C-alpha cells in the first residue's frame, strides 16, 4: 500500500475527482484551501490579495499497482498548463488498522 498526496490548484478540482473515478480509487481524504508554494517555480497559493489563488490537497492510500497509473494521470494534468500546478508525492504505508 502506498500513500499518495496530490496537491493541486483548486481550479482542477473536478479533474482530480474525475481522475479518481476513472482509476477506480474510492478512498481518499480531501483538504480544501491548502496554502503553500513550490520549491522551485511554483507560485505561492496564499488566498491573499497578493496571491489570490488557493490549492487543495487529497491524500489517498492505494495498492502499489495503481500508483503509476495515478502518477501518469497527474503528469497529464500538469501538462495541460504548467502554471496552474499540480504535484503528487508517494510514500509507503507501514501499517493500517
Amino acid at each position: 500500500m502506498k500513500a499518495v498526496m496530490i496537491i493541486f490548484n483548486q481550479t482542477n478540482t473536478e479533474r482530480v475527482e474525475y481522475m479518481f473515478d476513472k482509476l477506480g480509487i474510492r478512498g481518499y481524504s480531501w483538504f480544501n484551501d491548502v496554502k503553500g508554494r513550490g520549491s522551485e517555480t511554483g507560485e505561492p497559493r496564499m488566498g491573499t490579495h497578493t496571491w489570490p489563488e488557493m490549492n487543495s490537497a487529497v491524500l489517498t492510500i492505494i495498492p502499489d499497482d495503481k500508483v503509476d497509473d495515478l502518477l501518469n494521470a497527474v503528469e497529464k494534468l500538469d501538462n495541460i498548463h504548467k502554471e496552474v500546478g499540480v504535484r503528487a508525492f508517494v510514500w509507503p504505508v507501514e501499517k493500517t488498522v
Partner: protein
Amino acid sequence: MSIYKNAVNKPITTIMIFTAIVVMGIYALVQMPVDLYPEMDPPFISVMTTYAGANASDIEANVTRTIEDALNSVDNLKEITSTSSDNLSVIFLEFEWESNLDEATNDIRDVIDQIIDYLPEGVERPMIFKFNTSMMPIVFYAVTARENYPGLEKLLDEKIINPLNRIEGIGSIGLMGVPRRVVYVDADPRLLDAYNLTVEQIGNAIAGENMNLPSGNVKMGNLDYQLRVQGEFNTSDRIRSLVVSNMAGKPVYIQDVATVRDSIKDLTLDETINGERGLRMFVMKQSGANTMKVAREVRKNLAELQKELPPDVEINLIMDTSDFIKGSINNLSETLLWAFLFVILVVLFFLGRWRATFIIVLTIPISLIVAFLYLFISGSSINVISLTSLSIAIGMVVDDAIVVLENITRHVERGATPREAAIYATNEVWLAVIITTLVVVAVFFPLTLVGGMTGVIFNELGWIVSITVVTSTVAAISLTPMLSSKFLKLREKKKQPKWYSYERTIEKWLGWLDNFYEKTLRWALRHKLLTLFVSLAIFVGSMLLMRFIQTDFMPESDESRITASIELQTGTRVEETIKTTRYIESIIKEKFPEVQILSASSGSDDEGGMFSLFTTTGSNMINLMMRLSDIEEREKTVWEIASGIREEIGALPEVINFTVETAGSGMGGATNTVDVEIYGYDFNVTNTIAEEIKNRLEKVNGAIDVQVSRKNDKPELQFVLDRDKLALHGLTTAQVSTYLRNRVTGMIASQYKEEGEEYDIRVRLKEEFRSSLTDLEEISIVTPTGARIKMKELGEIKEYWSPPNIQHKRRERIVTVSAKPDRIALGELAKRIKAEIDQVEIPQEVLLNVGGTYEDQQESFMDLGLLMVLSLILVFIVMASQFESFIMPFVIMFSIPFAFTGVILGLLITDTTLSLVAALGAVLLIGIVVKNGIVLIDFTNLMRDRGLELYEAIAVSGKSRLRPVLMTAATTILGMLPLALSTGEGAELWRPMGITVIGGLVFSTLVTMVIVPVMYGIMSHHGERNKKKGIIKQIRFME
C-alpha cells in the same frame, strides 16, 4: 456557500432571478409616468386675504402687517414676502425644502385663528393656498368664433369642458376672456329724477318680480296640490315692462326710465388669437397625474369633440407643455441607445471576442432596469434627470463585469474548465470589485443627502447611479460567472491569423500602445521632478484660465415659446390698450414669420380666478403668448427672436415697461434674474433709489429687461365726504358709498335664469352719466327723509396718486430692480451690477442687497462645494482602508485636480458656461477618475508584494493595467458622447454635463497614467512593502 459558486452551480435559478428582476423592471417602465423633471413640492404656501374696498396702504397697515408678524413664528419658515394691493393681501411663505407642508399649513391655520379677531371688520377669512408645480396649466388652446362668439361660454361648457373633465387626471379646465352674458338695465338719471325714482328702486322692483315662491298646499278632493307663484322671467324682455311706480295715476315702466340690454359684459379683457377675437382655454392636471398622458388624451378627445361644434368655432393649440417633455425624453432615450451601442463597440474593441462582449453587455440592461424599478417604487417618473443619470451610469456598469470576465478568461486560457474557472476566478477578484464599487458609491451617495431645489435633481441622480452600480456589481459576481461558465470556451490559438483578423490589427496596435506607454512611464520615472513640475504648471495654467469661464445657474433651453408682458401708462383704458395690442400683433405677424400662434390678451378680467396668480393683469397690461415653429424648421433661435421682439416693442412710445421671456416651464417656471433688493420704509426715498438703480442697470452691458417691482403710482379719485353735511342729511359713509357703487358699478339686482344657467341683472346709470367728474358730482341720492341731493353737496372729488401694490420681504418694505442676462452668464451680470450699485449713494435707513436667481445659484454652488468635500472625504476613507495606508489615497487623489483642468479646457473649447449641471459633472468626475487610479495603484502594490522592485513594479503594472483603464475611461467617455453632442429639444439642459465629464476624463486619464505612477514613485520607498522585515526584527532567534 458564496454567491458566485451558487450562481454557477444553479444556472437556472440565477437566470430566473434575473428574469424576475427584468420582468418587474419592464412592468415598472410601462407603468411609470413621464415628466420633464422629478416631481417637486416647492415649499411655498401663500395666504390670501381680501378686504374689499381697501387700498394698498390700508391693506398693508391693517391686514398684511398683522398676519405677517404672527406668521413669522411658524416653524421651518425660510422667508416671508408679501404684496399688498387694492382689496387684496397676498403673503408668500417660503419654507425650508423637505419640510412637511401639511404641518406647516396647520401651523398657519392656528396662527390665523389666533389673530383673526385683530383684523379689521369686513376682512374675509384668509385663504391658505399651497402652491404646486402641477397647478401650472399643461395645455393651452385658442378658441375663436365669429357668429357664435356671444354664446361661446355656454357652448364650450357643454360641448367641450364637461366631456373633457371626464378624462382621468384632469384637474380643471379654465377659460380666459370668455364673453359673459349680462342683462344691463341702464337708467337715465334725469328721468329717474323726473319720476322720483332711484336705481335701488328699480333694482328692488326687478328682484321682487323675478322670483318663484311656494305658497303652501291646497287639499282638494283626494289630492294634495302644491301652490306656487311663478314669477321668474322667461325672457329678459320681461324686464322692460315691469312697473316701478305710479306717477299721476299712471304706471311707470322700466323702459320709461332705462334701457334694457341683454348682451355681453362690458369690455375689460380682450383676447385675440392671431388677431381674431377669441378666448383661451387652459387645462390643468391633477397632482401626480402623468402630464404626457393627460395632454395626449385631451388632444385626442378634443379632436373628436371639435366635430360637434358649429363650423365657425375653431380650436387651435397654442401650447402643449407635453410637447417639450416628449421631445426631450425621446431625445434622451435616443442618446441612451447610442451610448449603449458605443459601450458595446468599446468592449468589443478591447476584448475582440463576441461571446465575452455579450456577457459583459448583458449587465447594462439589467442594471438600468433595476433603476427603473427603483424609480417606480419611489413614485418618481421617467424624466430628464433620471434618463441623464442612466446615461452617466451606462459606461460604469460594465467595469465590474469586465474585471471578473478578464480573470475568468485568464483561467480558461490556462486550461481550467469554464465552470471551475468561473468559480475560482471570481473568488479571486470579488472583493476588489466590491471595493471599487464602494468608491463610486462614496461619490454618488452624498448626492442623495443634498437638500433644497438642487437636491431634487441630485437625490435622484445619486440614487440611480448608486443603485445601478451596486446592481452591476451583484450581476458581475453572479450572472457574469454563471454565463461565463456556460458560454466561454478555450480558444485555439490560430496558427496563421488572417491579416484583417483581430489579432493582427487591433490587438497588434494595442500591444504597440502598451509598449509605448511602458517606455514613457520608465522615462517619466527617471525624470520625476520634471514630470511633476510640468504637470503642476499645466494645472496652475488651467486654473488661470478659469477666469474666462462664466457661471450660470440652469442653462436655459429653447422651448419654442415666447411670452411677453407689456405695460402701458397706468390708468390707460382698455380700449386704448387694445389699439396698441393690434399694432404689436401686426408687427409680429409681418416681421417674425416664425411665430405660428400669437395669443394676446389686453386688460384684465375682474373675475380673473386662479390664472391671475400667474400673470399681472390690469386695464393697461398686454400679455402675449407665442408659439414658434419647431426648432428644426427655423433658423433663428428663440433668443434671437425674443431679442428682435424686444427691440420692436421697445420702439413704441406708449409702452412704459415690458418683459419678453423665452422659458415657461423651467424649474418651477423661474427664469434667471439678478435682483437688487432695496429695503426701506419711505416710498419716496426708495422710489428714487430704485429709479436711479434702474437707470444704471440699463446701462450695464449685458443686462436686459430691467424691471422695477413697484409699479408706478396710479391715479385715483377719492370722494372726500363732509361729515357735517352727512350728519345733517342723516346719511352715513357706508350708505353713500353703497349708493355711489350702485350707480357707477351697478347693482346686481337679481339673476336671470335660462336653461339652467344664471346671468346677472345689473342696474346702474347710463355710461354717459357716470364718466366725468361733473357727472359724478351730479349723481343724486335720496336721504332717509326722502329728499334728493346731489353728491357735490356732500363733499368733493379729489384726484390722488397711490401705489398700486406694496411689497414686503422679511416684513420690511422692499422694491426690487431685476435684470436678466443677455448672452452673458448670470454670475458675471451679478458682478457687474454689484460694481455699478456700489456707486449709488444710499441713505442710512435704506438697505441694498443683490439676490434673485443669482442667490439660488450661490446657494447651490455652496451645496455642491460641500458635497464635493464630503465625497472627497468618503473616497479617502474607502481608499485608506482599502490600501491600509494614508499615503496611497493622496497618490490617487493627485489625479483629481487634473480632471478639473480637463473640465476647464472642455468648457472653454466648447464655450459653455459653468452651470449647475456642468458643476455636477465635475463632482461625478471624482469618482470615475479615482477609480482609474485605484486600478493602477492596486496592481502596483500587488506587483511589489510579489517581489518586484519599486520602479519595475510601477512600469510592469502600468503596462498591464493600461487596457483596463483605457477601457473603463472609453466606455464612460463614449457613453457620455451622445449626451454632449445632442441637439434638439432640451439638449441645452444636459449637454454641459456631457462636456465636463468628457473633457475632464480625457484629460485626467492621459495625465493620470503618467502622474499617478510618478507620484507613487516619489511617495514610496524601496522595500517599504516588505512586511516581513519588520516581523523579522522582532523575532531574530536564529542568528
